[in-house]
């Protein structure tokens, strides 16, 4: 394949990077304002929703379902049982976060989308320009939006909102345009012939007649926003998506199903509500007086709902104002090692009176968030080798507090029964010439790819990426079947105590020597939170400590519980960290 096109590759990636860089540097202030506003707004709404007692909330929604579905029992019962199930599984707070995200992204999509749709319907030129953009927005995989979203808004709920809007906007725009263009020509002519202004024509004729089509678009928009919730959790959007993602990365079928089912319940409720609200009025013979009464009731209902949320927001803010030592944001990657260490240090800091939020992120994004100061700290920087690339990129912007665990190791790992391989150089045709890796952004994977280039015998091999959870499942399956498998492994890890495994020797040193895990904090943390800074600086434990926690988590204990148990069992060690002079 050496034709003319291949001689000079167009630097498209460079152009896009340059453009986003330019945007992020020149519009930083604007994005910051948006981010802070969005963050406080969404946190306020979520807090408000959480402040409503769940059972009251369930009751209100059930009653609403009863009336919305015109007194049919199916939806009513489903709403009640579905929400009770979510509450029972302890996913209430996640549900409220998800609802906030879906509501806001749908709402903003409508606010942006309907006017765009109207403009598209009114002007053929606008339609010609907007249609391909919509096609582009709808076919581009949702993941792609996460990258600029992080660049613009950092991590958390705001970039999730941004990505959701871009992803969910098109149906509303399209259907609005369709609906307005679909208004019968003679009705438009009639409106014109009586001398309606453009605005009168729009509000009195076109929008009322296009309403059903527009609502169908809005329904699709909410569904798309909901599906984006799962994807957005990779960049720190809280909610039910996080549970699904964690389950995927730890390969926990049960918990994945529980979270997924909660999302299904929410999706069905939202879908049915919007559909029922969109149904053409069957009671056509309503007198104006009845209409008026209905309008009053609707307004009263809205006011009541707003009052409910508003009051709980106020109540909540009063609650949070009587605060403790402040908030700390810890970010981590969903690896078993980091889940253990992050939960332990978070628990320690909580006991010291901090309000700690932990956000699971993708590896590269975790580094970026600390470098940008969106997260305060992370305790999962594998150096000098595994995360060399990230460290090189961000070391100017983070503060290295040194090692919190030494003796960590990464390498290629095989089961002991593969007696014919002891070194990477021995690999030739085993295991379908595949190295089973973890997340594409992980340092181990980069190291494995480096090894692949270093060792000539790995020329025809490939590193297949998935997630850390999926990798351990594949390993367990291969061991059960006594099949050969090569994985990207690291210690500390519970798999070494569960299975008989061995590291392959690495004569060329491509996978790095013994590694250390380091703590990185953002610049300025020392001034803002000297005490927390000190604790993070003191944090230090052994491979054995970590593996204890990891095994417990792996055996089904909740991470927070396992962390608390370990802290309880090691008071002296913890005291050494928290003694701040």
């Amino acid at each position: 394949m050496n034709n003319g096109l291949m001689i000079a590759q167009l630097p498209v990636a460079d152009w896009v990077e340059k453009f986003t860089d330019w945007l992020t540097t020149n519009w930083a202030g604007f994005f910051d304002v948006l981010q802070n506003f969005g963050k406080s707004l969404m946190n306020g709404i979520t807090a408000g929703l959480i402040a409503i007692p769940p059972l009251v909330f369930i009751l209100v929604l059930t009653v609403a379902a009863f009336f919305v579905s015109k007194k049919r029992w199916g939806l009513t019962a489903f709403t009640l049982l579905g929400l009770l199930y979510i509450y029972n599984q302890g996913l209430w707070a996640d549900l409220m976060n998800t609802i906030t995200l879906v509501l806001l992204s749908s709402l903003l999509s409508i606010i942006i989308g309907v006017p765009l749709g109207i403009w598209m319907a009114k002007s053929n030129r606008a339609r010609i320009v907007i249609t391909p953009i919509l096609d582009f927005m709808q076919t581009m995989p949702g993941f792609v939006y996460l990258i600029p979203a992080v660049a613009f808004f950092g991590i958390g709920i705001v970039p999730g909102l941004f990505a959701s809007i871009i992803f969910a906007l098109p149906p509303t725009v399209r259907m609005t345009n369709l609906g307005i263009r679909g208004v019968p020509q003679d009705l438009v002519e009639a409106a014109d012939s009586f001398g309606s202004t453009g605005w009168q024509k729009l509000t009195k004729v076109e929008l009322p007649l296009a309403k059903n089509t527009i609502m169908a678009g809005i329904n699709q928009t909410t569904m798309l926003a909901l599906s984006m919730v799962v994807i957005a959790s990779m960049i720190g959007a809280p909610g039910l998506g996080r549970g699904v993602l964690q389950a995927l990365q730890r390969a926990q079928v049960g918990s994945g199903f529980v979270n997924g089912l909660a999302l299904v319940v929410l999706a069905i409720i939202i879908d049915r509500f919007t559909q029922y609200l969109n149904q053409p009025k069957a009671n056509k013979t309503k007198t104006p007086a009845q209409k008026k009464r209905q309008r009053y009731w609707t307004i009263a209902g809205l006011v009541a709902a707003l009052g409910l949320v508003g009051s709980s927001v106020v109540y909540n803010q009063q609650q949070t104002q009587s605060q403790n030592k402040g908030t700390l944001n810890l970010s981590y990657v969903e690896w078993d090692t980091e889940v253990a260490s992050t939960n332990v240090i978070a628990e320690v800091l909580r006991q010291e009176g901090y309000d700690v939020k932990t956000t699971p992120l993708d590896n590269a994004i975790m580094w970026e968030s600390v470098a940008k100061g969106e997260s305060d700290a992370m305790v999962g920087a594998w150096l000098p080798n595994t995360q060399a690339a990230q460290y090189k990129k961000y070391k100017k912007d983070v503060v290295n507090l040194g090692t919190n665990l030494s003796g960590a190791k990464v390498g290629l790992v095989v089961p002991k029964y593969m007696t014919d391989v002891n070194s990477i150089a021995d690999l030739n045709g085993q295991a379908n010439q595949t190295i089973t890796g973890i997340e594409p952004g992980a340092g181990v994977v980069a190291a494995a790819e480096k090894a692949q280039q270093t060792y000539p015998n790995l020329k025809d091999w490939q590193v297949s990426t998935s997630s850390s959870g999926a990798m351990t499942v594949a390993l367990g399956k291969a061991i059960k079947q006594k099949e050969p498998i090569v994985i990207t492994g690291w210690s500390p890890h519970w798999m070494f105590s569960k299975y008989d495994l061995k590291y392959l020797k690495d004569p060329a040193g491509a996978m790095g020597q013994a590694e250390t895990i380091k703590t990185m904090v953002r610049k300025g943390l020392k001034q803002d939170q000297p005490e927390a800074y000190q604790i993070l600086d003191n944090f230090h434990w052994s491979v054995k400590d970590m593996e204890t926690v990891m095994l417990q988590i792996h055996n089904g204990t909740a991470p927070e519980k396992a962390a608390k148990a370990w802290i309880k069992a090691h008071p002296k060690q913890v005291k050494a960290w928290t003694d701040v002079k």
Partner: protein
Amino acid sequence: MPIVKVEHLTKIFGKRVKPALEMIQDRQSKTEILKKTGATVGVYDANFEVNKGEIFVVMGLSGSGKSTMIRLINRLINPTTGSVYIDGADIAKMDKNALIQARRKKMSMVFQNFALFPNRTILENTAYGLEIKGVAKTERLKKAQATLKDMGLSAFADQYPDQLSGGMQQRVGLARALTNDPEVLLMDEAFSALDPLIRREMQDELLDLQQKMQKTIIFITHDLNEALRIGDRILIMKDGQVMQTGTGEEILTHPANDYVRTFTRDVDYAKVLTAQNIMIPALTLNLDKEGPNIALRRMRHEEVSMLVAVDSQRQLKGVISAENAVAARQKQAPLTDYLDTAVTTITKETIVNDIFKVINNSPTPVVVTEQNRVLGVVIRGSVIDALTDDAAVTESKTKGGDSNE
């Protein structure tokens, strides 16, 4: 004193308007222009005046440009060149706001398919024009109620258009236009979507209304009878061009050209008119399943004294008269014994002049058949009609142009 005056009004659809316009100045035909430039001429250099208080009918076949014409008058379609003066002000030159004001005050429109807003009640539909003007709610509803009451629609005020019949809906359309109290009422094939009976009713109603209101009405139709019934003056269009303007009588007696002559079906045309153009549906009785009681009942219902007897295959069996049907009923005998089988039959290709010869000697209606299958009957009235002038027959379809209406 003309209230509407149209001068050199031209509308060209398509892309290459300029060369088409030049060709119009050279008086080239519509087909030539279409061939050379690909542009369609909707209205070709029209000139006419409408006087205050008259019903002015614009008529022509599909594609003759009459619908475009009416939309040029209230500028739902922008003219390519020319002027439309209403009360001396040129609609074609107005800016947006002046145009909106002119539409609100000077003219209202009634549409072929009623164009009522399905999301509004009859009352709200009727008050639409006033609502647009910004009249206070109580006042506009009061006015709308009054109009509805005049038209006998008060009972339906709170219903929605899709709960009404076509005739009712068109009355609402008319009420909506009238509530606005315009100087000019534009009616675009207003009665074409209704069935013939209701249509006739509506025509009468419109004439009654006109007695009371003395409005200027520009009425579009493709039906010559309708035009003759209600029009004070008639304008005939073909291919976007005005053929002739005049009263109904003038147009029938002095057609300006061959097109108008054929269109209004002159005497000469009777030579090529055939039975199928003038026959009416036969009132039949199926001998295989219907007896004297049904026969009599049908005669009473249809207000006739004779029926054409057929079998289930619509094969002609004869004619049954009322006297014979009564006799059969008294005798408890089958109708077949009382049939009059001597029926004059003709084919559908028989020319009107020839029918005229046979119909005078036939006591029973002349039946049009095809292989003994009944297609219809010819009655004296329609033949005489066809041989004189004002033809009350189904249009022979001499369709001109593409139907872009």
